[in-house]
């Protein structure tokens, strides 16, 4: 418990300082210690083309080029697919150490993947650059479900941990982690509740399982169920972010915290560089991503993709990555998925 409070505090401090960092970047001129980038910038999306990390990488590439941030150099995106990004992570750490022109997109999913896949390499071995965006999770039930509120649902799970059948993305992924966190916060038997979780490949299968009645609760990214919520087929019980959000109901859906459970989970995405790059290089990469974040082109990308801005760079990003690693590892262990 103390650990969790601590990590939350770290996250809060990081959040607070992020705002200040943003302001100072605009004012002080970067000391042009190194010319960066001095050659083609490689951005690795550690997942298949078309997914969230890939879209983030390609939006970055586009904004870099459209905003002329690359000293006339260009940026390339390549995909290294598989195993929640840990294959890409292993490549970044083993093959590109010291090369500041190799960046990789990362996120919460990779933090969980490192634990569940027992990856030899973890995120703290990279050079953290920044977090970029975040997305809330949403908890939904069918329109004819007996659970009207999150409390109804968690009370039922507490009374009989096997009564509620949950469904979402891959085992040990963000959705599964949220189920574990909710069960813990409600004082239910987290291990048994987490065992009632059925993993589906992608939101589509989970949607079908909700509609067919296989599962009673769906957990996924906030935008996943929007249309079915809008059509009245599904009811959104809560979102996992810091503030209420409209996920299709026409009015904002309350957060898990509003319902009285101390859980906040953001599916964030960010960018890291390989290990072993010089301090001057690190400063230059952070400076470049700071400029990206300040650009009109990036703001436009955020609006177009409906991403929530979630920016921390440099040391705040490092602290956040570490805090999330600690928190996720302990949750996964508690629900029986870590070692």
């Amino acid at each position, binding site marked *: 418990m103390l650990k969790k409070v601590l990590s939350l505090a770290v996250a809060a401090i990081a959040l607070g300082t992020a705002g200040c960092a943003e302001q100072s970047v605009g004012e002080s001129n970067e000391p042009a210690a190194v010319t960066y980038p001095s050659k083609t910038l490689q951005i690795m999306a550690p997942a298949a*083309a*078309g997914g969230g990390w890939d879209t983030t990488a390609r939006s970055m590439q586009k904004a870099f080029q459209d905003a002329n941030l690359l000293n006339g150099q260009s940026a390339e995106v390549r995909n290294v697919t598989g195993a929640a990004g840990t294959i890409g992570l292993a490549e970044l750490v083993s093959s590109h150490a010291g090369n500041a022109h190799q960046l990789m997109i990362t996120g919460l999913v990779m933090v969980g993947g490192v634990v*569940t896949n027992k990856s030899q390499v973890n995120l703290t071995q990279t050079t953290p650059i920044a977090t970029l965006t975040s997305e809330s999770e949403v908890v939904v039930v069918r329109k004819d479900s007996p659970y009207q509120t999150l409390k109804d649902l968690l009370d039922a799970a507490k009374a009989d941990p096997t009564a509620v*059948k949950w469904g979402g993305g*891959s*085992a040990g992924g963000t959705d599964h982690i949220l189920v574990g966190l909710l069960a813990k916060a409600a004082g239910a038997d987290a291990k048994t509740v987490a065992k009632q979780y059925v993993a589906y490949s992608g939101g*589509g299968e989970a949607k079908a*399982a909700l*509609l067919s009645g296989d599962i009673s609760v769906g957990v996924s990214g906030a935008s996943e169920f929007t249309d*079915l919520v809008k059509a009245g087929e599904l009811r959104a019980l809560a979102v996992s972010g810091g503030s209420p959000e409209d996920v299709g109901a026409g009015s904002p859906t309350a957060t898990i915290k509003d319902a009285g459970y101390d859980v906040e989970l953001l599916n964030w995405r960010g960018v890291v560089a390989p290990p072993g790059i010089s301090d001057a290089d690190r400063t230059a990469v952070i400076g470049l991503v700071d400029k990206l974040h300040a650009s009109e082109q990036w703001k436009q990308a955020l609006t177009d993709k409906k991403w929530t801005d979630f920016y921390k760079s440099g040391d705040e990003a490092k602290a956040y990555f570490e805090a999330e690693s600690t928190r996720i590892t302990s949750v996964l262990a508690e629900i029986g998925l870590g070692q």
Partner: protein
Amino acid sequence: MNAFGDLINGFGTVLTPQNLLYAAIGVTVGTFVGILPGIGPALTIALLLPVALELDNPTGTLIMFAGIYYGAMYGGSTTSILLNTPGESASVATSIEGYQMAKRGRARAALATAAIGSFVAAIITTVLLTFVTEPMARLAVSFRASDYFALALLAMVTVTAVVGASIIRGLMSLTFGLFLGVVGIDALTGQARFTFGVTSMLDGIDVVVVIVGLFAIGETLFIASRLRDLPEQAAPLEPASGFAWLSRADWSRSWRPWLRGTALGFPFGALPSGGAELPTFLSYMYEKRRAKNKDEFGRGAIEGVAGPEAANNASFSGVLVPLLTLGIPTSATAAVMLAAFSYFNISPGPQLLQNQGPLVWALIASLFIGNVLLLALNLPLIRLWVKVLQIPRPLLYAGILVFATLGVYAVSGNIVDVLLAYGIGLIAMIMRHLDFPIAPAILGLILGPLMETQFRRALLLADGDLSIFVTRPLTLTLLLLAVAALALPHLPKLFRGRRPVLSGED
């Protein structure tokens, strides 16, 4: 709702020079993508997404993407038939009889029945898509985990149609496929199985890798290993008879399988966990069972090409049903198309028809036009494709090997996949030398994981109570169908069992 009037308006939207151009580009790109092993429509559309965003024309883009999808299905049959190298799992059933036809100089007829069958299936199912989308989607999402298990079991019976002469060899091939299917992280528990500590294998072995390995690479190695014994060219070719691609007899043998394949493919495509492979294999089994001249199967029966190809294309219209009405993608390509929709701020789902009616009708109209374009493109291309068979073998298969390797590498950008494909290719070569059938391995690879996952999901959701498989009427019906499909062909033998079985039929 006046679907007909809306559809006419849809045609109005598509029949502009610009959108027609998009449709033409889509079907052409799709045809070539389908021919190249490994590079499928999902990858192509994903790579084209950023370009499409620049065009800023949602209707045109979606028309192009649908064209790529359909085009890939037409193209996919070409290499299966000519060279026994299907590039994706949905073309495997086609290759069984198609390649045998090509070997006997009937490549033109095989390609023609595939193209025309694809066209017939696509047109019929697009009409169905226009009128029965809503009830169809409701029915599709009523399938639960236990139903999927029973369905997969029913499809598993088709293995009896593809085992070939030796049941032992067939079952060994099936087991090999089942083994390849379980490699990777177990979906329900997150445990790694048979990965041998190789990180790249955590996600399992991609179906494309296995198929390219078993067919393109396996076939190439096999041919290379006995090149001296073979004639210079890949296959003889019957002289062309003008414009008539299909003889009168071919037509009369093809049209029923086309319709039956269509009837199988459409509903399977609509199932959220169905896929195009199941109906193609079911169609193959059904045609084989029905055939009057059973011995022709395995030696190039045109029904065995016509049915599966129609089923393959019909399943695509089926895929669109849950995609458009519920926002549920049922195939990799549909998932990428869903991403394309969201790029343009269109969210498929119950309200799509209300919010974006014109776009949906334009998409449906483009399916009609795209298929006409595809037929117009593919029938004349047959003349060109069959020329492939006249390329000297060493050059031809060297080319196949290059494209196969590129295709596998393109899927994941990972050298481990290429090595795996070659390893599987080597095994496939040995299998060919020892007369093992290849198709059962594919069935095991696809159906094994489906059966396992759905069986365990069903049990988990029922708190471990096995009675779930007999208490749900739909599940029970499907299970009984599976038993019937397995037992029926043997019933006559059982009844005749009293007499000495020396009729020499088997």
